[in-house]
């Protein structure tokens, strides 16, 4: 029964109207946002806003966009729009236009993601530092986390290769698929063949999430220099083993932030877009339009820079000691 004619009350959706977060945690969120703005403001970054709805979308095969539609002046027949999965492309266009160091705190949207550490709509802090490489930006991300987490934190830094050698005794850049499978079996992951894994990166993701992350322990861990095949939008440093100048920050074993020494080469960016779209087609996944405006901006010239995106909700979970993301969100997806 619904109060409104024609509006079905879905039995699956709870009619619970109250927030899932305590007011203590909502206050902590407010204080965290203020502390972040103070930290970045002191360091000379400018807060910016960019559109949440875009005519182009992230092509990354690991991300799916939510979609909407605008109809009205300028779009009489309706314009399909993609809710951003991060403000990266628009912020890079600002950088290419000469903005200098900028940050943004905004809601971003990812289809298909809900769980203890995921909500399809969440708050991201993203910032860019012209002139920084990924190591210098790691220093700054770490300083921010130390500032906002009110307890002493250990601070460890190691390469992706060192991380895998430490926890699993394997070299992630050279191990064969058979060796990665063997490692998963040895670590007690049953039914590995039922997962139908056909590439090294998926094996590495499986080992990272199932075997390494649970062993990480408390404190800050910065992992850098990822396999080139996991570069995403990072530049690749040539070498015997080419490495992506990408990093991840973990706090108490929870992935909080991902950063890049940003790819600035328009031709290489276009090649990666095409490669992503090809992979999406192969996997029968939605194939959204790639961002031509970003490519045009890169052709004009993106300053040498590094950028990082940090999940505010997860950071808040660690500050509040929350076990589930719902404890720090006023209304998670099931009550949205």
């Amino acid at each position, binding site marked *: 029964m619904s109060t409104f004619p024609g509006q079905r009350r879905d039995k699956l959706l709870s009619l619970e109207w109250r927030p899932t977060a305590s007011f203590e945690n909502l206050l902590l969120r407010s204080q965290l946002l203020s502390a972040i703005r103070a930290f970045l403001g002191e360091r000379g970054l400018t807060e910016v806003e960019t559109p949440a709805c875009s005519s182009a979308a992230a092509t*990354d095969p*690991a991300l799916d966009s939510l979609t909407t539609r605008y109809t009205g002046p300028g779009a009489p027949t309706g314009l399909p729009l993609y809710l951003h999965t991060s403000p990266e492309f628009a912020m890079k266009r600002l950088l290419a236009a000469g903005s200098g160091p900028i940050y943004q705190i905004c809601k971003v949207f990812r289809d*298909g*993601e*809900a*769980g*203890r*550490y*995921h909500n399809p709509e969440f708050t991201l802090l993203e910032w860019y530092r012209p002139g920084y490489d990924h190591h210098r930006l790691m220093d700054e991300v770490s300083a921010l986390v130390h500032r906002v987490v009110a307890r002493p934190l250990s601070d460890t830094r190691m390469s992706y290769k060192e991380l895998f050698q430490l926890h699993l005794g394997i070299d992630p850049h050279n191990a064969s698929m058979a060796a990665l499978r063997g490692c998963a079996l040895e670590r007690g*992951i*049953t*039914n590995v063949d*039922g*997962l*139908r894994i056909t590439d090294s*990166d*998926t094996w590495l*993701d*499986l080992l*990272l*999430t*199932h075997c390494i992350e649970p062993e990480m322990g408390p404190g800050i861990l910065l992992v850098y220099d990822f396999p080139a095949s*996991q570069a*995403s939008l990072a530049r690749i440093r040539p070498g015997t083993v080419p490495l992506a100048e990408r990093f*991840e920050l973990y706090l108490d074993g929870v*992935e909080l932030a*991902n950063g890049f020494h940003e790819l600035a080469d328009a031709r290489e960016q276009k090649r990666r877009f095409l490669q992503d779209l090809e992979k999406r087609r192969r996997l029968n996944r939605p194939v959204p339009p790639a961002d031509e405006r970003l490519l045009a901006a890169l052709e004009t010239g993106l300053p040498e820079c590094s950028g990082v995106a940090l999940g505010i909700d997860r950071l808040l979970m660690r500050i509040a000691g929350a076990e589930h993301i719902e404890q720090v969100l006023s209304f998670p997806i099931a009550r949205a």
Partner: protein
Amino acid sequence: MASYSTNEFKGGLKVMLDGDPCSIIENEFVKPGKGQAFNRVKIRNLKTGRVIERTFRSGETLEAADVMEVELQYLYNDGEFWHFMDQQSFEQFSADVNAVGESQKWLKDQDVCMVTLWNGSPLSVDAPNFVVLTITETDPGLKGDTSGGGGKPATLETGAVVRVPLFVQTGEMIKVDTRKGEYVSRAKEG
């Protein structure tokens, strides 16, 4: 038969895994920001009772298991099967030793049990939490000892053996907690 994707997995959902009916206990979504999404699922095999952890790629599906829990009255044992009846429909069900398992030693005719049915056949039988049974044999114990300290073994009408206080005698009825297999108290006749 219907199937469920990992997006529908939640505690209590009954699915088929490796040919056995299972009940999902917990479903955790794990995904590196730039990588493959997995579901780490804790699942109980309803045949063996064992809990295992299994990882799925997000979006994979499992076939639904036709499993339901019903209250049935225990009728009798014919030497091979234990027979039960639905008190509303009078439909009868027979359970084998695998389904009855440890519960067999607490089953007394007319007691109502929770029975899990898979494709209409009993998969497991849970005895009532408390049953009242008659002691068929126990040592007389020491005269005048009412302290109950120490205790002694007593064989019950179903064949089960429990420890009882020394003052409890053959022919008496006692209340037993079937989950712990422990004596609770003397029971009134009737």
